[in-house]
């Protein structure tokens, strides 16, 4: 049964991917990509990667699609037929693909529990993380503690993207006073009502995801994306002006800086307390309490930066002048 679902999902993926190649309407391509992302998320679930599925759904199908759609709104919707020669790309792709297939031939069988990946490094996470970190969700333990430094890097990546987009779009943005006349969807009663009910729930859920990541799937990143999604929904349906007034660019910027600084700051504090960078054990008398605090704080940092940056990205794109 499980395998059948898998095969169906994979089949869909293949169909969608080919459709994207063929599709000339960019809007359709984006939607197809959203579908591709959602299907992937489903496969992630079937592969036991619930956190990843969660993130992929929120990011791939959510934020990425919104960003691309915002861009399409500012550029053009249709792709022009390309007069590129197909031969060279095709050869490159075939060679690359063939190399990869060649590489798989010696790979351990799919889901083989004896594969090397399951025999080294990972067993310790599974067996000892509860004693060492004190979190039921091993992914959170690894993400925020064992490999907490990668996650710090990840927050910085998001921050970097925020900075990059602000830098890029600053010259083409509306002035403050020109912004009020942007359209919104306030006049669709159904949308409006649904949104009014949904948005508080979304925000509440985001809070839950933020603070429940220790026990179940989720964490700062997913929560941040959901938070941002809630506000973006509000902006699109009820009114972008209020969002803009609440979250001024400066404020958002400060928020995303705060998140990054919070994360790195935790590391600095651990340094000052005599531990290694991001060694949460030294944050409290009890090691596990220290881990708990450390993870709580860094996840908060992640959540703040992600929320602020995502919102800032959306607002930046929405404020681009339409006339060239």
């Amino acid at each position, binding site marked *: 049964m499980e395998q059948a679902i898998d095969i169906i999902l994979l089949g869909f993926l293949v169909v969608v991917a080919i459709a994207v190649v063929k599709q000339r309407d960019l809007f359709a391509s984006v939607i197809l990509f959203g579908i591709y992302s959602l299907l992937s998320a489903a496969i992630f679930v079937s592969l036991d990667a619930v956190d990843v599925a969660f993130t992929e759904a929120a990011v791939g199908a959510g934020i990425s699609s919104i960003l691309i759609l915002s861009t399409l709104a500012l550029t053009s919707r249709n792709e022009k037929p390309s007069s590129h020669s197909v031969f060279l790309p095709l050869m490159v792709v075939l060679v690359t693909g063939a190399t990869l297939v060649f590489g798989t031939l010696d790979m351990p069988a799919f889901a083989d529990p004896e594969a090397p990946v399951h025999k080294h490094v990972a067993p310790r996470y599974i067996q000892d993380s509860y004693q060492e970190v004190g979190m039921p969700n091993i992914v959170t333990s690894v993400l925020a503690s064992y490999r907490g430094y990668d996650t710090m*890097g990840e927050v910085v990546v998001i921050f970097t993207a925020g900075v990059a987009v602000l*830098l890029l779009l600053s010259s083409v943005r509306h002035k403050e006073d020109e912004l009020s006349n942007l359209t919104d969807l306030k006049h669709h009663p159904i949308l409006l009502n649904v949104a009014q009910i949904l948005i508080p729930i979304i925000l509440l859920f985001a809070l839950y995801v933020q603070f429940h990541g220790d026990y179940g799937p989720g964490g700062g990143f997913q929560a941040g994306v959901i938070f941002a999604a809630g506000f973006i929904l509000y902006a699109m349906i009820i009114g972008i002006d209020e969002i803009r007034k609440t979250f001024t660019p400066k404020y958002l910027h400060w928020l995303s800086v705060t998140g990054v600084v919070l994360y790195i700051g935790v590391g600095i504090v651990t340094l000052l307390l005599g531990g290694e960078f991001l060694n949460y054990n030294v944050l409290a008398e009890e090691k596990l309490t220290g881990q708990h605090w450390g993870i709580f704080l860094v996840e908060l940092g992640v959540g703040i930066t992600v929320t602020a940056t995502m919102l800032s990205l959306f607002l930046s794109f929405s404020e681009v002048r339409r006339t060239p």
Partner: protein
Amino acid sequence: MISNHLPVLQVVLPLLAAPLCVLLKRSSLLWAFTLLVSILSAVIAWSLLQQTDAGIISYAIGGWAAPWGIEYRVDKLNAYVLLIVTGIGSLVMLGGRKSIEQEIDSKNLSLFYTAYLLCFAGLLGITITGDAFNVFVFLEISSLSSYALISLGRDRRALTAAYQYLVMGTIGATFILIGIGMMYMITGTLNMHDLAQRLPEAGSSRTMLTAFAFMFVGVSLKLALFPLHLWLPNAYAYAPSIVSAFLAGTATKVAVYVLLRFIFTIFGIEYAFTELPLSAILMLLAIAAILLATMSAIYESNMKRLFAYSSVAQLGYMVLGISFLSVTGLTSSLLHLFNHALMKAALFMALACVMYQQGGVMMDNLKGLGRRMPWTFAAIVIGGLSLVGVPLTVGFISKWYLLLAAIEAGQFVLVAVVLAGSLLALIYVWKLVEQGYFHSGNESITRQEAPLSMLIPTWLLVLANIYFGIDTSLTISVAQTTAEQLLGVTQ
């Protein structure tokens, strides 16, 4: 106490400084702050290099021992690269203020410095880490910030250059990701040191070969190894002057470092050179890079593009040195890593001066420049001579070792290629000299030298080009011991 934490501070310092830039608005403060951070980083790098005399430094981030946690692992090789990146970064920043104020919108200044520091920290992070996946993360930090930095160039082609770089760079990063995944699949670990021990145990397999291939192509894209260099000329040409200077001096050097690390440390010489014909592949690519890129440089009329093509060729020299698989060859590559950083930083800084005064860096802007901006133009000439490999410059030392390696290997075709490359370089350097000094009808030109704040750092770099061409005790000893370490030759 602080000396124990230097490895992590090396990266965290600029990383923390980056968002803090937002607090500052005044241009002078931003500049001073960034400069301070760069210099402190250089001090850290220098003391790390000293510490490596006592052996490899390992720092377990989060207190988790490798391979479960992420390890920072500093040996001579990466301490040396860290020093290059921070040293060049400091000097470029020292002279950068005016150029940045002129070329970057004043309202974007805080963000510009933020992005610059992020890029700086990203490059340091790639270099210092002992964890394969951590390389990917910091690679992306440096890449994303450099896309943004490049796009800030005044010419609209800066945008397309940044986009092209983004696409190529992301493909490269994804290839690296695939490679890391496959290595992980074979061994179950991400720690480089651990990988180095477990990969040979796993025995060579098709998966390993594929992992190698993808890592190699991915890194080569970042390295702009011929023929994957197409993004580089435009990216360097249209970026703001200071960004070009910084990236030309550092980014590709870090990529070469990653290549060395993964060939020599992770996969090991045995695998890469005995079981795979890597030597031959590297040689061929290097030859093509040296000859073809130099030819492109000769026909280029935009100075920044010219020197960007020359960078592609110079990377060829470094790769050629690696391909000999000898202490001398590797020494030459490592020397050139340092020396080329000095040359290109000096040249691009000088071009920043030209840009500042002339508003362009086309051949036409050089007419009579020897009179108009004598100091700047002299810097360009000395930098150019260093590229050619004239004695008393760093370029000569690199070339000496590279030729020695080729002669020792009995590869006289490669000797010819290296020499031909130098002679071709002489042609494009001479084009500049003629334009600057011997352009007729330049008698009426008035002097318009660049401000001292830019000239002094440029000349510091130029003098470094000469100093390290004469007193090589630091560079050669580090390069040689590192080469011996990488090759497992102990003396």
